[in-house]
């Protein structure tokens, strides 16, 4: 039953493996566990956001506002931290997730209730969110020395050998794997993207599911907003500028179909890791960083061409002889 092996994921994992071997042949230190952990930690925000984006894309939408959401949430929590340095981290986390989810809900409502195409909605909110950061911060940076030590320490705190930032990604992956496979919401998300018309007949509210997808994506962007700002210990208008496209790219490389309904948690995670490895490997093997953009562009093109080929249905086979030989 060859068709039950998820072909895309296997090949993508293979590509990542090959990449690691190639890098290791020039720079063995890169595959040392410690360094791989660093790469994972560095890729964690991308993994988390790619999962949120995956859910949105699966429902036939797209969320271009994630990076702006991340930046706005990050700025807000940073400013809150400056104003109230003693606020405990769990409260900060709650604020970040809620605020992010709220922004996701704005996207979701516009898509659900007013039926505005998601790309238009999120293109609009993307610029609006960025603008709001400027308005609330007056364009000023929040620097590390203004943040409380607890605030910046959280994502770095090491548990069982890995920083909290990495754990956040790992936990997100586990929660998503469970949610997508084993909860009615997860299955509805696939159903809505796969066949929205049929979803209505089975009692699934398409608009509401899309709304929830945006809320999920927003909440994760909010969470990442705090982790990002705390990790790099700085908040300003432009953080994570253009990151939304990297997130979409991770999904595409991971085999999430932009037409909705097709994709997997494993794919999204591997797509993100692939980009993360490329990004981290280039400086190490002394390839000029100027190559990075062209390489990730080519990776997207190859991945999408490949996925389309693998996903193309063989169609119906009427001829008996053809059936036997295929």
């Amino acid at each position, binding site marked *: 039953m060859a068709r039950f092996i998820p072909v895309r994921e296997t090949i993508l994992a293979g590509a990542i493996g090959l990449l690691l071997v190639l890098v290791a042949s020039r*720079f063995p*230190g*890169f595959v040392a566990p410690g*360094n791989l952990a*660093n790469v994972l930690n*560095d890729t964690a925000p991308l993994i988390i956001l790619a999962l949120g984006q995956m859910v949105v894309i699966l429902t036939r939408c797209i969320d271009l506002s994630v990076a702006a959401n991340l930046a706005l949430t990050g700025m807000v929590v940073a400013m809150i931290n400056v104003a109230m340095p003693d606020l405990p981290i769990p409260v900060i986390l709650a604020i970040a997730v809620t605020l992010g989810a709220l922004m996701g809900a704005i996207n979701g409502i516009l898509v659900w209730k007013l039926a505005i195409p998601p790309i238009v909605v999120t293109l609009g909110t993307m610029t609006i969110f960025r603008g709001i950061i*400027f308005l609330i*911060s*007056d*364009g*000023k*940076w929040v*620097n*590390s*020395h203004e943040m409380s030590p607890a605030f910046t320490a959280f994502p*770095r705190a090491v548990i069982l050998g890995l920083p909290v930032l990495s754990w956040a990604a790992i936990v997100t992956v586990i929660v998503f794997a469970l949610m997508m496979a084993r909860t009615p919401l997860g299955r509805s998300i696939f159903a809505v993207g796969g066949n929205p018309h049929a979803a209505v007949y089975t009692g699934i509210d398409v608009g509401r599911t899309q709304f929830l997808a945006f809320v999920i994506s927003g909440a994760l962007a909010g969470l990442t907003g705090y982790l*990002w700002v705390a990790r*790099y*210990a*700085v908040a*300003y*208008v*432009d*953080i*994570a*500028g253009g990151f939304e496209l990297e997130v979409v790219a991770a999904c595409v490389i991971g085999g999430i179909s932009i037409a909705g309904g097709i994709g997997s948690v494993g794919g999204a995670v591997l797509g993100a890791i692939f980009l993360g490895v490329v*990004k*981290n490997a280039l*400086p*190490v093997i*002394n390839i000029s*960083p*100027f190559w990075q953009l062209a390489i990730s562009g080519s990776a997207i093109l190859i991945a999408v061409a490949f996925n389309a080929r693998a996903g193309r249905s063989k169609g119906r086979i009427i001829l008996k002889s053809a059936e036997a030989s295929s």
Partner: protein
Amino acid sequence: QDDVRIALVVKALGIGFFEAAARGAEEAAAELGNVEIIYTGPTDTTAEGQIEVINALIAQNVDAIAVSANDTDALVPALKRAMDRGITVISWDSGVAPEGRQMHLNPSSNPLIGNMIIKLAADHLPDGGQVALLSATTTSTNQNIWIEEMNKVMGNYPGIEVVATVYGDDLADKSYREATGLMQSYPDLDAIIAPTSVGIVAAAQAVVDAGKVGQVNVTGLGLPSEMAGAIESGASQSFAIWNPIDLGYSATMLAYELSQNGIEAAPGAEIPMGRMGTLTLDDNNEGAMADPFVYDASNIDEFKSIF
């Protein structure tokens, strides 16, 4: 309208260094009495953004534009048009090609800065060692010049080897990642030189996170307020900067002199700039404001609350 309107155009809004310069400009304006400062710039460090800002300033018919450019050449046509419409144009901090401005104010002289950044690293490496450069964007005019000047004097620092130059694009996360990459690629790295205020902070953070405080010394150009933590943690032994408040102050004074007092910017001209003395222009109509100043554990507390 009586006020003289001087526009201080910066690379991007929100950067601490330029905010401090704006304060200096206001100080100058207060001193001059009838000056209105328009502090503006794009929100990201692009030439196109600056051009739009400059077009809007031309339309408002301001009296003078003092710009820290994101691109030496790209602003030239827009600034030329400004000069055609009778607006005084000077560049400061990061320069514009000579045909696009009347004069340029360097914060310090480029050879001095080039020498300073390598000296800061070498002073803590008596036996020599590996250093790497973390620059801003690949297109930043002044970083490129300083690195060039630094390379000229490398012979004076035997044993010091520059192993790599990477670019953090003046983005905190990219700079952080590049710094981390440097430490991985060069396990024996002794110092990171970041001649940019964004890069130096990110690099210091990366060194702390990598647990390499004491092994890798971060130095370069930074702001005391932002670097106070790094000095305290030991990630940075020392760094240098000129005073951005003085820089904004001087730029405003120069713009005022050129536009209101009929002083012509020509090679050899001596232009007064208030409490900062006078500026002497060289053959390129450029002048240097002052020497960079070194900050370390002994004096950081005094300055960190100022800028």
